[in-house]
């Protein structure tokens, strides 16, 4: 139901590396699950509105006023790498 190429495409969208020895077993597991949930494709739902969220949800904005926020050093403390006042990441192009 989901083949290796499709799996690699989805993994790419999810920014999740899958190694060669994981592809076949993962494709098989996902296929089993997708086959089960695909039962909902057979239902007649044309006249049914979708529900994204239960209850009344409306925009909820706080007052536009200055309030305290996390100090920079506290926000950066759990980061794997920092430089100056920011999170440090590797170059997109590599070294």
């Amino acid at each position: 139901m989901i083949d290796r190429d499709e799996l690699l495409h989805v993994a790419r969208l999810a920014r999740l590396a899958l190694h060669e020895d994981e592809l076949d077993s993962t494709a098989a597991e996902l296929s089993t699950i997708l086959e089960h949930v695909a039962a909902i494709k057979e239902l007649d739902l044309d006249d049914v509105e979708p529900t994204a969220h239960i209850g009344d949800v409306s925009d909820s904005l706080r007052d536009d006023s200055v309030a305290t926020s996390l100090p920079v050093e506290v926000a950066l403390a759990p980061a794997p790498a920092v430089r100056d006042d920011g999170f440090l990441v590797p170059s997109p192009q590599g070294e």
Partner: protein
Amino acid sequence: MSDEIQSLSAVAAVAAIADGGLSREEIFAHYRSRAGADELNAFTWVAEQAPAQIEGPLGGVPVAVKDLFCTEGIPSQAGSKILAGYRPPYTATAVANLEAAGAPLLGKTNQDEFAMGSSNENSAYGPVLNPWDKTRVPGGSSGGSAAAVAGGLAPWALGTDTGGSIRQPASLCGVVGLKPTYGAVSRYGMIAFASSLDSAGPLTRDVSDAALFYRHLVGKDSADATSVAFPESIEIPTAERLDGITLAVPTALVDGDGVEPGVRASFEASLETARQLGATVTSCEIPSAAHALSAYYVIAPAEASSNLSRFDGVRYGLRRDESNLDAMYTETRHDGFGDEVKRRILIGTYALSSGYYDAYYGRAQRVRTVVAKELAEVFAGADFIVTPTSPTVAFGLGARTADPLSMYLSDLFTIPMSLAGTPAISIPSGLSEGLPVGLQICGPAFSENRILSAAYALEQAIGFNGSAAWGAKR
């Protein structure tokens, strides 16, 4: 003294502290010692000492908290290797509410990674053992919280329920678990799994404990736009009868193949008890219940695939392969996430991807509408829907890990209420071959007081005794 403290329910402990028979320090030290000697792997972190100031109506009775709640300066790893060692800079509102009411943090409890699982075997920190039988699972995903309460390592605990993650482990461990109305408890500071479904609630030794705990958990929170003010105060239940109450049993669902005979027998006995208490038992239909399970396993992974995109090695947690930015993202996530989390991220990404969105996610959202409507129709003619909480008692460690789909089927009876956002409780209804069975009682939105009241009446009549688990020397 130790046995005496151990025998107290949380409500009784609060009363004993209030009248001077027990001190806050004594109860904290008692449970600190029990939790510190944990042989169930229920805890991932235990407090050294109680905070200096503990005042409030919860009397200083300490609480165990599922690891996915952020606690300032204290490890909050959500059962995942990708958050190993993470100490958040702030505390979740639910935990802060309990602390403000006088329940200090006893420890953090083990769980399925990011709350994805029904056995607690998906934790990067090892499986939790069921205190009734250590060769069996405690259920999940709040397995550590359930086992801690059932095993007498904590007076009460905070868990979360997305598709059954409070109710199912409560059932498998013989404790009480309440999944609230969606929005009644703030999600701020809960590490998110599926935001439209996630709910925080109590796991306790009895129904009165659940009511007291829940009273201090609810409330609108400006930090969670989906939170709502609970329309009434939560009362400690006192009802002894069920006169005038109608219980509806979704017969086709409950008579299905997967329900173990011992579970069915306990459920039938509970219905008979309810009749003796004055209730009317009728049959109802939730025709789309089987499709609800399918819809859930599209919607929850879809939301998870979005929520878990934040774990990328940039701001916290694990980082791998720094050769370039993309390699860092993909290899960090490869090494940091466990198998079940990866499966759900992939399923969710697939269901949301171009070409499949309408067929999977769009249809699942429509099934959700149908399920909510079907439940509302039942509630128009009955007070509560009752089912077994889980089709089975606690299963053996490893029994279902090879087949993810069989694990998903554990949630058949709990998922419809999650999709509809309605509250439900699981209470112990008895034992089957020495293992606890749970009874689920579900009502319409904001009916928690009525659910707790009915659950209390049934609890008193059933007379379940969990002391074999919580009273055991550990």
